[in-house]
């Protein structure tokens, strides 16, 4: 059965029920989070690699207020419902939950990911140690995936401006 896009976007209670069901079937879920403002190829690359770490992939998506708190007033470019929609369109993503906090810590405490994926040039000692503590306390595994060069939302914005600023 092909899930519609909206079927993938869940609230906290729904996600917890899904996780419970997964565990009954001896499956593990991967969790990663981000703003995913302008979705681009490197995001997709990252998300596919994240999915490969487990059986299903759940994304924590920063809400608009959360993104503003993190990145300032000019972001996000794309509102949360549309960012969720784009992520839901990707084959590799199973579920999405939108969260309002500035940090993902509360959500990690609630969900207790089996596998927590972080993207970027981190080591286990340089990632957010509070996040590390929460995952390890709940017997989860942390996987760090290196970032990909040359892609960022900032670069994409610049590209759009270069193409369109005279129109």
């Amino acid at each position, binding site marked *: 059965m092909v899930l519609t896009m909206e079927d993938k976007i869940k609230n906290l209670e729904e996600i917890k029920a899904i996780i419970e069901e997964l565990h009954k079937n001896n499956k593990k879920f991967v969790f990663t989070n981000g703003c995913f403002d302008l979705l681009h190829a490197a995001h*997709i690359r990252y998300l596919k690699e994240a999915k490969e770490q487990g059986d299903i992939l759940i994304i924590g998506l920063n809400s608009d207020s959360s993104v503003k708190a993190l990145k300032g007033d000019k972001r996000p470019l794309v509102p949360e419902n549309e960012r969720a929609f784009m992520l839901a*369109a990707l084959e590799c993503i199973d579920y999405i939950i939108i969260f309002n906090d500035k940090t993902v810590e509360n959500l990690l405490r609630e969900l207790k990911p089996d596998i927590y994926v972080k993207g970027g040039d981190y080591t286990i000692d340089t990632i957010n140690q509070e996040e590390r503590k929460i995952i390890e306390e709940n017997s989860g595994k942390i996987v760090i995936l290196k970032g990909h060069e040359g892609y960022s939302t900032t670069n994409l914005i610049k590209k759009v401006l270069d193409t369109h600023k005279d129109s």
Partner: protein
Amino acid sequence: MENRLFGDYKDTEITRKKLYSLDDIANLNNKVKVLNIGSYDIMHPGHCNTLYFSKNLNEMLGKFPDNYTELRSKYNGKLNPENVFMLVAMNSNESYRRLNKEYAKQGKKKISTHDESERVWQLANLGCVDGIVLFDDLTAQNVIKSYKPNILTKGGDYVLDPKEATKDKPPVDQEEKKLAESYGGLVVLTPLGADKDGKPYHSHHHFVQRILEKHGANNGR
């Protein structure tokens, strides 16, 4: 089938599965053949919406019971996604090279896009895309001639009739439209989507405007 992709984006599974050649697409006759044409450089929700409805046409008909009478009468009952093959024709790097040559002659600004391998990669990872074909020409005419689509889709931020075109809503390519129709194809505009709460997904024009407003040169930099 030659694999044109290279570098980081030469993904063995998904792009080999979904990237087709012009010869391949001439033989896809067991389903309702849908074609969408675009370059899909920077993906935005309007794109996703068009692509999603191009594959899930039955859902589109269900959500808009008063529209699409011709589509409904011709294909009703046959538009569930399992029965639809959704092919996207994308401009290759060569196509852009040729387009930019034309634009230079006309004194228009050059268009730069991400490499074709990256654009194919982005699109291939969408669940609603069944196949992708790259075209080198200025338009997708050869794709239409080989594939002979039953349905040609464009986003809701286009109009069918050039007389109704505005700055926000350009006309669909009339050559492509005529060609598709000559093979019995139907040209369909997908709705300018909205989410569960009825808030509309923006068109390409709106999307660009939003970026210009928030980040443009006029913004005190």
